[in-house]
């Protein structure tokens, strides 16, 4: 018979790290709250009969956000055999608040005291035996990061699954206990005996979602309400407050007795570092410096050395020469040879070339995340975001979105306010995801060569600025009106990054990138090659006369005001614009396709058979467009609608098709307007050129300024998600 172990605990206590260690899985781990927004399961290593469930982190069993609903719904409705309660031992009191509620579910609970390595290093004394005795359950010391104690935790959990559960963790004051006992008598016929105490307490707290699970008659509901009202009068407080405060009163002496700090009252190293990196004035400049250094490593030095080798040597010489000469000697037909050289190698090679830069970037970001620095940035940016109507809670999805927009969009589930959640979903993809990095690197190399170090950081600044500008504007519409939700984040202790986890993250992201190059990008490259090699009668023709050129030319006039149809000297040449247009459209399938498409189009056109490489694509593109048009091309592709996968995630999370379509249209329109303004104003400033496009850009700028400075016309939306809606 199988045993189900549920991992439950506060956010960012190491549940997913423990889950990975117990099951051998490789779920993403982040050193901030809210990484896990869905339940995940896996089999225990060495015992396939044991299923381990990783639940999103919760602070209590009174859910406010959608991922908290997932955890409570599972614990109440599906009743696992045992709950392994992961507790951050460095913050005992707050973690034990949840423990008192888990113990009331009528399910055996095992306490896994995590981060004991930090406790030991700091010299604090943790008495797990006393904790176990106080709560009447077993307690195990573990360190999910180092792996110590996890086998013991699994063994104890399996044993506890067959033991009876405790149902009274906290004994409230006599008055409250009397009220709970009276309520229990009324609701007893309607609930499972296992959950009678839990339901009685929840009824006392007036938990609307818990009450929906009990079919009380009107008379019974009135009697319950009378009992609560009477108790509230006697105690002069709100019922929910009474329970919360008595729980903390019960937990506080236990926590104080079980964890004795070695140096009470002295600031820890984390506190000292925080006094600098979260400083009111220095925090943001430090963050900017850190990010510039990361991009200097990835885009200018270490990453670039690797990328240059892959582009110039691997896909510039070794692969084309080896494959080309072999096909020549094997007398392969020119058509097939063209497909391999100009389609597959040129397209896929152009994207793979950026892999070294991306690996360095992934590595640096993983280090910053794992050591605890990124959680501080969410806290620091809360101050900035709040001024513009968005809470720091939105920064976590945005940060996740720098890896991939899809989990970033899903990470917005941690935001309770409906308006803020939808706003975050809409703006998360403004931050460059990893798929957009090759586009950034290509534009930097195409137009600025060795001086393009500023393009990468500027793209991220553009993303943050766009999020802020759009939030300011959209908060003034009736769909997104409302004050930002309160943001409370627990800053984890700094620790040395777990290199195993960091390398696993980098390897996973790198492999996913390579896999994508071998699937969707390869298919798109073949399709682009075919479309640019044949006309509508399927006759082999030059690219200028191909189907793709016809399609591109039909759409290109839309993008002409962005400068995509211009020669580097500023003269209009409509034949040129279709390549950039087609590349942008192909980016909707996957953003890497922008580069692979340009690889096929410019690689074929500007170079001869055996020299297709991303660096040559870059120089070909630099010769074909003016730098200002290159920047407008980059801006449009960074800010426009994301790839299909991210659009699908937006639709699922927004739960409103009209709003979703509106969001996609808004993103495209915003991208177009920003690219238009940059190009037209840049051209006017540099060459003194004023056209109809300049007037359109000025009008759009005036409209944006109006939206930014107009007073808020709508009342705040106070809606908060409930369990029923989330289901």
């Amino acid at each position, binding site marked *: 018979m199988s045993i189900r172990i549920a991992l439950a605990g506060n956010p960012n206590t190491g549940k997913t790290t423990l889950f*990975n260690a117990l099951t051998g899985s490789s779920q993403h781990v982040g050193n901030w709250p809210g990484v896990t927004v869905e339940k995940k399961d896996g089999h225990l290593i060495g015992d396939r009969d044991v299923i381990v469930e990783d639940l999103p982190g919760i602070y209590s069993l009174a859910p406010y956000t959608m991922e908290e609903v997932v955890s409570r719904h599972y614990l109440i409705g599906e009743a696992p055999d045992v709950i392994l309660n992961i507790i951050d031992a460095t913050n005992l009191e707050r973690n034990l608040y949840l423990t008192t509620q888990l113990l009331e579910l009528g399910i055996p609970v095992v306490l896994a005291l995590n981060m004991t390595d930090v406790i030991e290093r700091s010299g604090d004394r943790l008495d797990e035996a006393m904790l176990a005795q106080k709560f009447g359950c077993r307690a195990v010391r573990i360190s999910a990061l180092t792996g110590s104690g996890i086998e013991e935790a699994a063994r104890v959990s399996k044993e506890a699954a067959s033991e009876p559960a405790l149902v009274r963790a906290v004994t409230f004051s006599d008055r409250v206990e009397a009220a709970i006992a009276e309520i229990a008598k009324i609701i007893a016929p309607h609930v499972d005996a296992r959950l009678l105490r839990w339901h009685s307490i929840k009824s006392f707290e007036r938990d609307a979602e818990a009450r929906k699970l009990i079919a009380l008659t009107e008379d019974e509901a009135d009697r319950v309400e009378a009992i609560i009202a009477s108790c509230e009068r006697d105690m002069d407080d709100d019922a929910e407050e009474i329970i919360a405060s008595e729980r903390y009163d019960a937990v506080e002496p236990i926590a104080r007795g079980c964890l004795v700090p070695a140096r009470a009252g002295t600031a820890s190293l984390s506190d000292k570092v925080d006094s600098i990196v979260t400083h009111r004035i220095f925090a943001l400049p430090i963050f900017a410096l850190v990010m510039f250094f990361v991009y200097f490593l990835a885009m200018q030095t270490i990453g670039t050395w690797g990328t240059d080798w892959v582009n110039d040597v691997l896909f510039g010489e070794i692969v084309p020469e080896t494959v080309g000469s072999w096909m020549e000697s*094997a007398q392969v037909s020119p058509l097939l040879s063209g497909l391999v050289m100009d389609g597959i190698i040129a397209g896929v090679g152009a994207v793979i070339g950026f892999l070294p830069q991306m690996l360095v970037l992934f590595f640096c970001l993983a280090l910053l995340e794992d050591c605890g620095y990124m959680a501080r940035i969410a806290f620091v940016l809360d101050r900035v975001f709040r001024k513009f109507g968005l809470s720091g809670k939105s920064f976590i999805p945005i940060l996740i979105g720098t890896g991939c927009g899809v*989990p970033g969009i899903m990470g917005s589930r941690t935001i309770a306010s409906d308006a803020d959640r939808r706003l975050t979903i809409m703006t998360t993809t403004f931050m460059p995801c990893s798929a957009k990095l090759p586009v950034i690197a290509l534009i930097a190399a195409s137009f600025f060569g060795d001086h393009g170090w500023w393009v990468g950081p500027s793209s991220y600044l553009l993303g943050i600025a766009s999020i802020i500008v759009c939030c300011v504007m959209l908060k003034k519409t009736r769909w997104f009106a409302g004050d930002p939700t309160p943001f409370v984040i627990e800053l984890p202790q700094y620790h040395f990054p777990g290199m195993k986890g960091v390398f696993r993250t980098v390897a996973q992201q790198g492999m996913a990138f390579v896999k994508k190059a071998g699937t969707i990008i390869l298919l798109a490259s073949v399709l682009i090659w075919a479309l640019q090699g044949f006309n509508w009668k399927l006759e082999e023709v030059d690219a200028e006369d191909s189907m793709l050129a016809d399609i591109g030319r039909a759409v290109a006039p839309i993008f002409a005001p962005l400068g995509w149809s211009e020669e580097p000297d500023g003269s209009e040449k409509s034949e040129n614009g279709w390549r950039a247009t087609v590349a942008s459209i192909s980016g909707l399938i996957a953003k890497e396709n922008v580069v692979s498409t340009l690889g096929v189009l410019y690689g074929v056109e500007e170079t001869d058979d055996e020299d297709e490489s991303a660096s040559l694509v870059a120089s070909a593109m630099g010769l074909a467009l003016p730098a200002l048009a290159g920047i407008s091309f980059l801006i449009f592709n960074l800010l426009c609608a994301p790839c299909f*996968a991210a659009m699908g995630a937006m639709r699922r999370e927004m739960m409103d098709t009209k709003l979703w379509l509106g969001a996609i249209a808004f993103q495209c329109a915003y991208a177009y307007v920003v690219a238009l303004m940059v190009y037209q104003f840049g051209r006017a400033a540099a060459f003194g050129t004023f056209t109809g496009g300049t007037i359109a850009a000025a009008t759009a700028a005036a409209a944006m300024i109006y939206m930014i400075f107009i007073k808020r016309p709508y009342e705040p939306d106070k809606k908060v998600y409930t369990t029923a809606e989330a289901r």
Partner: protein
Amino acid sequence: MMGNVIVGAIVIAMIAFAVRGVIKSKGGCSCGTCGNRECCARKKG
């Protein structure tokens, strides 16, 4: 002739593999970072 057959077979195999990968992803992102069932095509643990 033989060269055409070999290269043609390799290209068809690559395209078939790519199509299979796209179908398996079921519209997910395959980013490899999250493992969420809804969002990522990676197999759950």
